[in-house]
């Protein structure tokens, strides 16, 4: 069965410092991996995805994520955090062979202090 784990409920970082939001996944086959961000009272916004190819993928707003197959991880990173990055971040996985169902992690709340 597919699953996604985001081990941190909350990540705190100072503005200008690098940030990492962790995600590990479990699928029976090969994964499609996604990061979404949710601002208060808004829907989820797509940030980036890994489908195939280069393990480092770049997305919106300066975010990037690294796919690590051996560690089954897909951590979200940004070299320099902004206060406006404060939001709820969701990692999601879809099994390539598993149809249309996307499984979301529980979410990690990112706080960036000025």
């Amino acid at each position, binding site marked *: 069965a597919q699953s996604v784990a985001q081990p941190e409920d909350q990540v705190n970082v100072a503005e200008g410092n690098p940030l990492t939001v962790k995600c590990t996944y479990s699928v029976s086959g090969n994964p499609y991996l*996604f990061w979404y961000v949710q601002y208060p009272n808004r829907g989820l*916004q797509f940030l980036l*995805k890994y489908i195939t190819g280069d393990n480092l993928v770049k997305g919106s707003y300066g975010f990037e994520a690294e796919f690590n197959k051996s560690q089954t991880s897909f951590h979200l990173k940004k070299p320099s955090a902004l206060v406006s990055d404060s939001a709820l971040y969701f990692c999601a996985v*879809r099994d*390539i062979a598993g*149809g249309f169902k996307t*499984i979301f992690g529980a*979410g990690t709340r990112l706080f960036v202090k000025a």
Partner: protein
Amino acid sequence: EPEVTQTPSHQVTQMGQEVILRCVPISNHLYFYWYRQILGQKVEFLVSFYNNEISEKSEIFDDQFSVERPDGSNFTLKIRSTKLEDSAMYFCASSELSSSYEQYFGPGTRLTVT
């Protein structure tokens, strides 16, 4: 930029009543989804819809739920007889093509069952 829209933004209903949540997906998208997010919990997949039929559904999507694309633009979720535990934020999403494509989410409908 095209976006997914949902109406109403907030629906209050009494237990046992029927509700219909409405969504207008992005116009050239072919796959449609409903998710729900109970307050403070993870985003849960309910159902996916393609070519005028359900392509996949979760165990949450029981006989009380149904989906429909009544015309070329709307995509609806009906809950026949609401229960207190149906109170949640319901998100509609659409994607352009198949499973490797990111989903675009609407802003959500907050359903409160009293």
